[in-house]
């Protein structure tokens, strides 16, 4: 009976996926396709940016250096002078992946490509992607903590007083939960508002909301990487 609701809102496809089957497991094909596109795009960007490096950057190298400096700024603001260098790659990977996948979902008219089921969209539109990114962040800050403090890292669970032990343990679960829900919800909400308003008034009216979506999705990439860096910084201290 909820299928009828789905049919009625046929413009808005939530929860229907283009399944691929590998053995007994099913994977979301449309997410994999767009994720691979993001990978290829990022590889091409970095190859073009580092080809024929010169002391005085011009053209594309200039642009890529601007991106790297921006990421450096984000990492430095959270991690401080002494630690930021080794974590630039992590923060930058997360930022660039989210940024590219959000913009790929927002800028390309995927509706023109019809799949048997589901539709092509930003990979961050799938909660599995965002959860994977959030769990990666969890692993990263545990790794950072163990690397700097060894087993003494566990002392943070009883850090102010042992009374806070349950809250400190709970924090390890709420961090990835809130990270993944924030990104997933924002991307999905953008897409839903554009789709709903587009199905009501197809012309011109959705354009400001699309622009807002492009802006908001780039802010989300910034927020995810900032938060990841600050969690890492928290366990490094």
């Amino acid at each position, binding site marked *: *009976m*909820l299928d009828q609701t*789905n049919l009625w809102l046929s413009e808005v496809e*939530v929860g229907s996926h283009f399944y691929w089957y590998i053995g007994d497991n099913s994977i979301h094909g449309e997410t994999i396709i767009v994720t691979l596109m993001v990978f290829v795009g990022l590889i091409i960007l970095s190859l073009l940016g580092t080809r024929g490096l010169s002391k005085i950057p011009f053209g594309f190298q200039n642009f890529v250096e601007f991106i790297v400096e921006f990421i450096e700024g984000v990492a430095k603001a959270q991690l401080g002078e002494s630690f930021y260098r080794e974590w630039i790659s992590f923060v930058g990977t997360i930022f660039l992946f989210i940024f590219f996948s959000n913009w790929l979902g927002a800028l390309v008219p995927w509706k023109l490509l019809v799949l048997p089921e589901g539709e092509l969209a930003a990979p961050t539109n799938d909660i599995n992607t965002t959860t994977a990114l959030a769990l990666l962040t969890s692993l990263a800050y545990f790794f950072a903590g163990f690397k700097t403090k060894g087993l003494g890292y566990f002392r943070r669970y009883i850090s102010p007083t042992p009374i806070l032990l349950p809250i400190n343990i709970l924090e390890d679960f709420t961090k990835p939960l809130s990270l993944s829900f*924030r990104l*997933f*919800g*924002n991307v999905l909400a953008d897409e839903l508002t554009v789709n709903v308003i587009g199905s009501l008034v197809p012309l011109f009216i959705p354009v400001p909301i699309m622009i807002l979506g492009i802006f908001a999705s780039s*802010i989300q990439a910034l927020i995810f990487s*900032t938060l990841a860096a600050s969690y890492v910084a928290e366990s490094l201290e």
Partner: protein
Amino acid sequence: MIDHVIAGSYVIDATLEIGFAGIGPGIGQGNAAGLAVEGIARQPEAEGKIRGTLLLSFAFMESLTIYGLVVALSLLFANPFVK
């Protein structure tokens, strides 16, 4: 018949959820924006910095509404109690 009642109750629940989830962040964003305007009026040269911080904190407040939205969407489209 009873299925329709249950489905309707989920729809009402989802709308209530969005509405209530909007209240707190709305108040918070209003407060933040008002204080930012005050800050810019007092110190117009700090506008860039204030704007950046404001946008970042807006996104954090908005994420609270988004949590409500995610729960509402999962009630509507991926409800574990219906299938």
